[in-house]
């Protein structure tokens, strides 16, 4: 955690030196232009932009950000031996080696012939190299590890690959995104593409971007995985939700990452 705090202090010094224009395209105070002409969005905004001032302030200050407690769990877990092989993550990787993972994932793994997100990768390593039991997505161990890993990519632009063997998953995710579902018969696009920035009862709709996950939600009083959020948004329209790590949510995660291509990673974000 110390390292990260130092980085953020160094970051704010840099921000003062280089002043405002550099910040205008981080999706927080100013929008990004989509990298691809196929993007359905003309401007890309982080969920940060739509959060209240108080919530933004909580995220901005690593000492006040409640998710940093989980970051600490992840940092400790990184060098903790576990499983029958008696190994830790630290024995196979340096923290520096995993720096960009949070921005690049999910990826199509050629060897495994499937889509892998950070949680699946963590469980894959635990099973294969550590002979340890998998962690559930929203267990504090997994939340901690996913926050620790994604936070190493903080400030790096989202850059997922959607061509080659990933294309099939991208299309599947896109189809999911635009499908009406549930008794209320709404698609993700209704709320997060057509009406983002508008008020729905007490909430202001964001673009539903994924660059802050696992995100600390004040309503949850803890961080939650992206797949937990998917499930919440499904249930909200009274639609069936899918399991964390299901093929449906994996494909949706890839497609959604692409909708936010270029958006800097903010993990751990804080949201209402």
């Amino acid at each position, binding site marked *: 955690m110390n390292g990260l705090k130092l980085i953020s202090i160094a970051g704010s010094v840099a921000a003062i030196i280089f002043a405002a224009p550099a910040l205008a395209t981080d999706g927080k105070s100013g929008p990004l232009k989509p990298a691809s002409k196929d993007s359905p969005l003309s401007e890309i905004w982080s969920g940060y932009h739509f959060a209240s001032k108080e919530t933004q302030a909580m995220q901005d200050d690593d000492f006040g950000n409640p998710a940093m407690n989980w970051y600490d769990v992840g940092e400790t877990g990184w060098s903790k031996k576990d499983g029958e092989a008696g190994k830790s993550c630290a024995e196979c990787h340096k923290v520096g080696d995993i720096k960009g993972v949070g921005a690049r994932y999910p990826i199509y793994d050629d060897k495994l012939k499937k889509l892998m997100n950070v949680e699946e990768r963590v469980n894959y390593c635990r099973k294969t190299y550590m002979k340890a039991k998998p962690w559930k997505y929203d267990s504090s161990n997994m939340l901690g590890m996913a926050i620790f890993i994604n936070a190493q990519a903080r400030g790096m632009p989202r850059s997922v690959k959607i061509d080659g063997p990933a294309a099939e998953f991208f299309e599947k995710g896109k189809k999911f995104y635009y499908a*009406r579902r*549930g008794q209320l*018969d709404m698609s993700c696009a209704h709320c997060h593409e057509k009406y983002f920035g508008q008020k729905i009862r007490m909430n202001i709709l964001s673009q539903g971007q994924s660059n802050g996950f696992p995100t600390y939600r004040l309503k949850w009083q803890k961080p939650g995985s992206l797949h937990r959020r998917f499930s919440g948004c499904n249930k909200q329209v009274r*639609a*069936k939700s899918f399991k964390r790590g299901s093929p449906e949510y994996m494909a949706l995660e890839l497609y959604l990452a692409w909708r936010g291509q270029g958006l800097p990673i903010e993990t751990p974000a804080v949201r209402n």
Partner: protein
Amino acid sequence: MSLAKRMMGVSVAIAFALTAGSSLALAQAKKKKSKCKDGETEQVASYKPSKGTNLNLQIEASLTGKPGNPKSGLKWMVHRRLGNCIACHEVKKILGEVKADNPGTLKKYAFHGKIGPTLDGVADRYTEGELRLIVVSAKKAFPDANTIMPAFHANSGLNQVTGDCKDLAILSAERVEDVVAYLKTLKQ
């Protein structure tokens, strides 16, 4: 779903829990209560749309053969699981129900969303039959809008509805008439 089917579902769940031999599974089976329990119904009235004035179509006749009650209509419109119309529509008359000395009325009648147009004056813009069609099925009323507004009196043609709400229309025919009766009072 019929009551008998529901009961069967419960007993299957309990039987499963018992064979699983786990008290945890039993607790979960008990905890999982139905969400569509505010009078949502599998009974959908049949209606024949006719040509409208401001919209292509309308439903001229009351779905129940009787006029609705505007006071009940207001109740369904602010209900968070039923109409919840104010989640998306601002209505000045409903904001007028907020009484400064009664915080309960704030929670119930305030905090309107702005996804759809304001409903103030809506009775001047549409005929009663058009308002009825909008509430029954906004998708039929605004066929080109890819509308976000749910169909409140429909129970088929839906995708992946959660078990508790499957095959149920959100508002019964009677409640649709109540809402229409309230909308008819919204004149400028």
